[in-house]
C-alpha cells in the first residue's frame, strides 16, 4: 500500500558536454500533487523525458508502482496508467479537436484488432465531448486543432492527458498561456480529479501562484540537481531558491 507510485533513482542524462540531469532521485506517493520547479535549463523537462521513455537516461532507474519501467516505451507506460503533457504545444494539428481527444482515449479500449472492427470513435464521443465542454471549447469541436490559439491548444493538450483515466500524470507547464480564469478551472479540475480518483500529479510550472496553491510538496531543481524540497511555505522562504530562481 505504501509503495510510492513513482520512484526515480539516480537518473542522469548528458548531452555532449552538458550534464542536464545529474543523478536525481525522488519518490512520489500515491495521491500526491508534487511540484517540480527550477530555473530555465535546470533539467526539469529532460527529467520528465527520461522518466517517460522519450529519452534514454545515461544512468538510473525508474519504477512505477514498484515495477521497474526503465527503458519502457512511452506507449506501454501510458497503458500502465501514466499520462503526460509536453512543454511545447503538441496537439495533432490537422485533426479536429474531437479527434484529438478521442485519440487520447481510444488505445485503452479493447484490443487492437477489436478496435478495427468496433465503432469508429471507440465509443468515446460522449466522454470526449464532456471533456471539451469542461475546457469551454465546445464551439471548436470540429475545428482543426492546429488553428486554435496558443492557450486553446494548451487546454486541448491538458484534456488529452485525462482521457485515458490515468493514475499518474506528469504535466510540463500546463499553465503557460492559459487565461487566469481558465487556469483556476484547471486547478479545480486537478484537485477534484485527485480527490475523486486518487490520481497522482507531478507538475512542472513557472507560475508560482499556481504551483504554491496546488501542490503539497515541491522539489526544486537547479543545474540538474535537487537543491531543495519541502512544502510551499518552506520553498518560498528558502534563500537558495530565492537566489537561484524566485528572485527578489
Amino acid at each position, binding site marked *: 500500500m505504501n509503495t510510492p507510485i513513482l520512484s526515480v533513482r539516480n537518473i542522469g542524462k548528458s548531452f555532449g558536454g552538458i550534464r542536464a540531469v545529474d543523478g536525481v532521485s525522488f519518490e512520489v506517493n500515491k495521491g500526491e500533487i508534487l511540484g517540480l520547479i527550477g530555473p530555465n535549463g535546470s533539467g526539469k*523537462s529532460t527529467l520528465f*523525458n527520461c522518466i517517460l521513455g*522519450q*529519452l534514454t537516461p545515461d544512468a538510473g532507474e525508474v519504477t512505477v508502482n514498484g515495477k521497474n519501467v526503465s527503458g519502457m516505451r512511452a506507449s506501454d507506460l501510458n497503458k500502465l496508467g501514466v499520462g503526460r503533457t*509536453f512543454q511545447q504545444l503538441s496537439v495533432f494539428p490537422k485533426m479536429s479537436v474531437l479527434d484529438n481527444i478521442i485519440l487520447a482515449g481510444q488505445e485503452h479500449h479493447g484490443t487492437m484488432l477489436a478496435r478495427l472492427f468496433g465503432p469508429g470513435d471507440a465509443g468515446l464521443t460522449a466522454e470526449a465531448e464532456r471533456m471539451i465542454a469542461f475546457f469551454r471549447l465546445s464551439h471548436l469541436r470540429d475545428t482543426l486543432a492546429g488553428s486554435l490559439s496558443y492557450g486553446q491548444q494548451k487546454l486541448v493538450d491538458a484534456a488529452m492527458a485525462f482521457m485515458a483515466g490515468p493514475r499518474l500524470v506528469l504535466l510540463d507547464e500546463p499553465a503557460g498561456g492559459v487565461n487566469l480564469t481558465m487556469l483556476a478551472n484547471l486547478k479545480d479540475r486537478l484537485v477534484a480529479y485527485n480527490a475523486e480518483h486518487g490520481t497522482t500529479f507531478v507538475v512542472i510550472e513557472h507560475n508560482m501562484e499556481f504551483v504554491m496553491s496546488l501542490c503539497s510538496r515541491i522539489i526544486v531543481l537547479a543545474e540538474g540537481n535537487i537543491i531543495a524540497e519541502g512544502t510551499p511555505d518552506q520553498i518560498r522562504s528558502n534563500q537558495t531558491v530565492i537566489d537561484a530562481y524566485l528572485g527578489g
Partner: protein
Amino acid sequence: MSQFLQVLLSGLATGSIYALVAIGFTLVWQAAQTVNFAQGEFVMLPAFFVLACMSILGMPFWAALLAGLILSVVILGVLFKKLMVEPILPHGGITLIIATMALGILLKESVKEFYSAEAQPFPAMFPNDPIDVFGAVLSMQDILNLVLCLGIVVLLTLFLNRTRTGRCMQATAQNPAVAEILGVNVKRMILYTFLINAALAALASYLITPVYLAKFSNGETLGLIAFIAAIVGGFNQIRGALVGGLLIGVLDNLTAAYVTAQYRAALPLVLLIVIILVRPQGIMGTSEGRTV
C-alpha cells in the same frame, strides 16, 4: 593492382560528378527544405542550351558556354523559382517534390521533341588526354572534376556558414515564418538558392556531358544517383554530398569489378542502407537535435 587502382581512381572521378549534382540537392534542402526531383534534368539541359546556341545561332564554343550559363540561371533559377517554387512551397515540401517530378518530364520531353531524341557529342572544356598514374589511366578532365568539386564544397560551406547572407538563407529554410518576422528578405534568399543551384547545374552539365554525351534522358540516372549520394552524405551538409558522391562512385565501380555486375545497381544501395540504419543522420550529417 593496377586494375584496382584504375577502378578506384575512375570511381573517384565519376563520384566527383555525382557529388557536383548532389551538392544541388543539399543546397536546395538547406535553403528551402525541399527536394528538386528535376535536378538531373537541370544538369541535362544546359548542355543543350550550349548545343543550340552553337548549331542554331552559330556561336563559338566559349560564347555558347557563357550563353548557356546565363540561360540556365534565368530559366532554371529565376523562372523556376518564380513560377513553381514560390507558389507551391508554402503548401509543403511533398507537393513541390511532385511538381518537380513533373517538371523533369516536361524538360526531358521538350528537349526530345524540340531538339533531338538522340544523343549528341559535346565538346570538352578541358583536354581529355590520358595521364598515367601508377599504371592507371586518368584524364585531365577527371582530375579537374575532382578539384573543382572540392573547391565548390569548401566555398559553399564557407558561404552558408560564414556569411550573413548564407545564414539568412539557412534561416529562411529552417523557419521561414521567423525569418520573415525578423526582416529577412525571404523571397530574395530563396532566389539566391536557386540561382546558385542553376549555376552549379550548368557547371556540372559542362563537365559531365563530354563524357556522358548530351541526351534528353541523361537526367534520370544522374539525378537518382546524386539524390542517393546527397542522402547518404547527410543531406543537411554540403560536404556530405561530396563524401556521398565519391562513396557511390567508388562503391559502384568496385562492385562491378569485383563482386557482381548484375547487381551493381543494388549492392551499393544495400551497403548504404546499412550505413543509414546505423547512422540515421547520414555519414556527414548532423542530427536535427532535440525533439522533445
